[in-house]
């Protein structure tokens, strides 16, 4: 164990089948099986990020993706330093889910640093979220990134971005 590492609890939130699990599967350190998601409803992974002055370990709580916001176990959010909202760029409805999830989290935990990932950017011809919409969100001060679990585009940056903000 790296004793000096700074740990931060980060929740991964998003609607059903937006690619959260794929994001963490390839880019994080994981020891638990995905079965935990369906049984316990959460799976914990770790993403270590080397910042200029220190190592930050993001303890990622991957919460089971559900479109039903009410079923979200808020206890899993307790003590989170930030969160990652994931939406599927090919399905605008998932963005709606992500927005309402953010509201829910905001209501329960107060304002927390977060990153919105619009995933599946590799499926360009199916992409259905307009730049205007994106710009509108960014204008609200949101960190929005396009990402692809398949190519890795935007993933590392998103984690790093969040790490800097929660470690600050």
């Amino acid at each position, binding site marked *: *164990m790296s*004793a*000096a*590492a*700074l*740990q*931060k*609890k980060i929740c991964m939130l998003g609607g059903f089948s937006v690619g959260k699990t794929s994001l963490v599967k390839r880019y994080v*350190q*994981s*020891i*638990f099986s995905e079965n*935990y998601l369906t049984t*316990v*409803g*959460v*799976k*914990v*992974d*770790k993403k270590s990020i080397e910042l200029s002055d220190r190592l930050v*370990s993001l*303890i990622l*709580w991957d919460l089971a993706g559900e479109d039903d916001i009410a079923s979200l*176990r808020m*206890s*899993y959010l*307790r*003590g*989170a*330093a930030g969160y990652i909202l994931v939406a599927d760029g090919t399905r605008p409805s998932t963005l709606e889910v992500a927005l309402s999830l953010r509201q829910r989290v905001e209501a329960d935990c107060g304002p927390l640093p977060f990153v919105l990932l619009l995933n599946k950017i590799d499926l360009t011809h199916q992409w259905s979220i307009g730049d205007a919409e994106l710009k509108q969100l960014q204008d609200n001060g949101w960190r929005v990134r396009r990402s692809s679990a398949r190519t890795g585009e935007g993933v590392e940056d998103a984690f790093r971005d969040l790490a800097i903000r929660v470690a600050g």
Partner: protein
Amino acid sequence: MSEPAATLEWLLRPSSTANGIDRRALAGLLVELARNVGPPHAAAPSGIVPIDPRLEQLRGLLLGREIEVLSRLSEVVEDPEQLAAAVARVLPTAIAQASTDARLGQVLAPALEKATQTSIRSDPRTLINILYPLIVPAIRKSIGEMIDETFQSLNETLKHSLSWRGLRWRWEAWRTGTPFTAVVLRHTLVYRIEHVFLIHRHTGLLIAHAAAKDAASQDPQLVSSMLVAIQDFVQDSFSGAERQGLDSLRLGELRLWSEPGPFATLVAVIRGNPPEGLHDGLRAVLARIHEERPQALEDFSGDSSGFADVEAQLTECAALRQAAQESSRKSSPWRVILVAGLLLLLAAAWGLQRWRSDRLWDDYVERLQLQPGIIITQAGRRGGKFAIAGLRDPLAADPQQLLRDSKLDPARIVAHWAPYQALDPELVLRRLRLSLDPPPSVTLAVVGNHIAASGSAPSLWLARARAVSRTLPAGTSGFDFSGVRDVGDGAIGKLRAAIESQQIRFNNGEPLPPPEENAVLDRLATQLEELATLSAAVHETTRVTVIGHSDATGGGTFNLSLSLARAEAVRALLKKRGIDPDLLAVRGAGPLEPLEAEVSDAARSINRRVSFTIEFEDQQ
């Protein structure tokens, strides 16, 4: 044209004897052949005779061999026995070839099942014989395994029971009243703490972690967060709003104990079978950490640097393990030998002591049994004491006295004696001694099975003894007096007779004897002295009475006084000769006890005399 056509129709009708030949087609064929040979025959089918033997001939020529083969085949097919024989020839090959086809099994299965059932029903031994070579090795193998298992467990048990440790556990089981197996389990199942996590309650982040040496380890940060997640899950799912988390998980031989604190939770991963008391130990560590670093714990936000001291405490915790087995293994053999030797010595000393007291007791009981007048009905150890009970004649030996001689501790003996009267000769003798009070000259002894008295005794005592012997209880051994000499007989008797035969003569009216009687007096004095000596020797008192007599002449009163005076005079004269006057009683008989009728002076002279009587009495 119609008639020949009808004839043709008739000709071409199916015939039963035509062997199924299409006559129309055949006729057509023949006409065609004829036309080819000679055109004039073109329109003369009427030339066909109803049964043309040539046709048969043609058939025979053309198909003779085939017909033969077919008839042989049909014969085989139609005759069941031949068909069976034919099928039997090819059946094995056919089945072998068809065995690849799954349907064969399906088709055969019901028939086989039925056949097997029938076979078992008719004679189960057949099936048993068939299965025997299969079943027996299987059974043997299973029994072998079972024996192996039993042997192994027996071995374990023996190992534990015969070792020093096993003995100690037996002692512990006996002392605490728990079954031996439970004690063995408690000691053999050691536990060890493999991991200790200190987890921040609010964020679920790991504050500090320590692992035992060589404990398999996953990323503790992930493990701790997942633990919190699982705890949250359980809490959400089952205990509703309660702030009661999951405090114990068990997975095989791994246990997970969670001790919640205000800001941090201590989670220990334990392998084995930890005692409940370990909870207290973990709680104490957690409380100490909270005491030392309350602020740091509360403000924890993921930075675990600066918790080195906490980690040290956890490391201490992670070193915890069951120590009982270790210590027993460490105890060096000489200590065991010493303790065992000491125990052996103690046991030997105790055994010797017990053996000695048992011997003493046996001796005591044996001695009591030998005592006449004591009958032992019960003797044995009872709760560390010796108990004895029986019958005892009050005249028998005193068991207390025997006990004092035996060196046994009287405090350890409980005795109960019921009184009775014994008929043993020895006891009868003792009883007789008490009741008869024999004079010292009599010796009473047991001779054979009766009591014999010997020595000498006065007649009176003898008479009393005889009376007593008659009152003895029936069945008592006899009492033989033949050995007792009546003191009236023998030397003393002769002396008595000698003294009693003597008289001292007196002259008429004289109270003193004439001088010529001095010789008689001297002799009497000697004899009386001898009598006194003899009676002293036989412990008897001799009573000598000196009796004065007178003749019948003269007054009665005078005669009485005279006779008494004569007796007194003789006593005085004897005293003068050294005889103790206390031995001599005097009596005056007057003329009342004459020796002879006084018909002459000579007779009167004989009656004027002093005579002696002697009686023996017991010396009391």
